């Protein structure tokens, strides 16, 4: 099964409010997608749903979600733990795979090598985002969801993210990016899903 999700009628919402209505969607594990839509169109809801972070209600729906695929989501909300240091976070989120001798080049690339023993709570938003990108590069999930990719990242950070996405695409690993509008830097191999038009 190469599909991450195959839906004929997907209805998602919060409380009694439906956010995504009758969405027909087919997402392939190995392909890239760019979800666009206005505020409230359901971009984050869709990303959360795909990455198992959805806290709302699934209404009368007909869909098949591939539960065997490893999916990571990085977005506006932080995933790492404030009370731990960066190194401890890396160890926890990689289930002990993180080894400085092996992964030092990745940490150095994201310019975090001097902050490994610092508490994560003192990090700036940009450094937090970079930390998550390091973990994505180490863990290599089958599918990656990124909500508002340019948030918190500077020019160099965006360049690193683009490199990461190219590397993932070459390794036949899929990505899904959600943003309000199409971003020039990611438009090469991305299939566009416009939530304003297809609902």
């Amino acid at each position, binding site marked *: 099964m190469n599909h991450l999700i195959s839906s004929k009628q997907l209805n998602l919402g919060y409380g009694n409010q439906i956010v995504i209505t009758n969405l027909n969607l087919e997402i392939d594990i190995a392909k890239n997608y760019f979800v666009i839509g206005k505020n409230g169109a359901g971009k984050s809801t869709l990303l959360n749903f795909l*990455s*198992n*972070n959805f*806290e709302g209600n699934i209404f009368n729906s007909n869909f098949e979600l591939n539960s065997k695929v*490893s*999916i*990571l*989501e990085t977005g506006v*909300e932080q*995933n*790492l*733990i404030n*009370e*731990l240091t960066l190194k*401890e976070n890396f*160890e*926890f*989120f*990689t*289930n*002990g795979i993180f080894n400085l001798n092996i992964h030092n080049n990745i940490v150095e690339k994201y310019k975090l090598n001097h902050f490994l023993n610092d508490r994560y709570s003192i990090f700036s938003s940009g450094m937090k985002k970079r930390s*998550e990108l390091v*973990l994505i590069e180490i*863990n290599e*999930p089958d599918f990656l969801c990124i909500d508002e990719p340019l948030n918190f990242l500077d020019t160099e950070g965006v360049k690193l993210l683009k490199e990461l996405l190219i590397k993932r695409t070459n390794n036949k690993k899929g990505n899904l990016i959600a943003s309000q509008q199409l971003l020039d830097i990611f438009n090469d191999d991305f299939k566009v899903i416009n939530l304003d038009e297809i609902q």
Partner: protein
Amino acid sequence: MKFNKYIFQKELKIELRNNISLYLITPTVISLIILLPLLSQNKFFIDNELFLILELLFLLIFSTLFSIRRKFEIKKIKRELNFAQISFKNYFYSKLFSEIIIFFPQVLIFLIIFSALTNSTINTNIFIIFITVFLYIFNIVISNLYFQIFTNFSNSFVQMVLILPIYIGFIMIISPIWLGVAPQLTMIYFMLLTGTTFLNYSFVNYFVLKS
């Protein structure tokens, strides 16, 4: 039951670095132990029986403080688990273990300090006490995790109000063993506590497997 050592390490580190952790609650409760009996009887000599009842009462307060010491943010935990690719089942059992490891020594220290400060003893043999304390803590921790994870009572006060009667129930089972009211019935109460523990574990485990 699969145990994840990284969850265990994380929980211990957070507990140590958390400013509102039990390491601050413990001295507060212990100072209360000394003050309250003196205030209640308005004298410096207290009956031994009263101390034993107070010990259970403070254990109850201590357990409640432990339960509401840190708010569980389920949404945040869920995000963490998804990002770390750890299953909920794995998290629950590791969390249960870490909570017991955090709470068990503190309760033992609490009981030893109480006995030392009040010069009172518990009227049962030490082995029974040790097992009883462990089963009590296991029940407290698993009930607390159930309330925090599987119910929607996000307010600490509401949680405390709902959790307290359950804890009183456990205290009522262990009180005859500790007070030594009827030594011939100790084993019966002990079996009752063991049975309740199995029942409690099965009940919560059902929700864990269902999730």
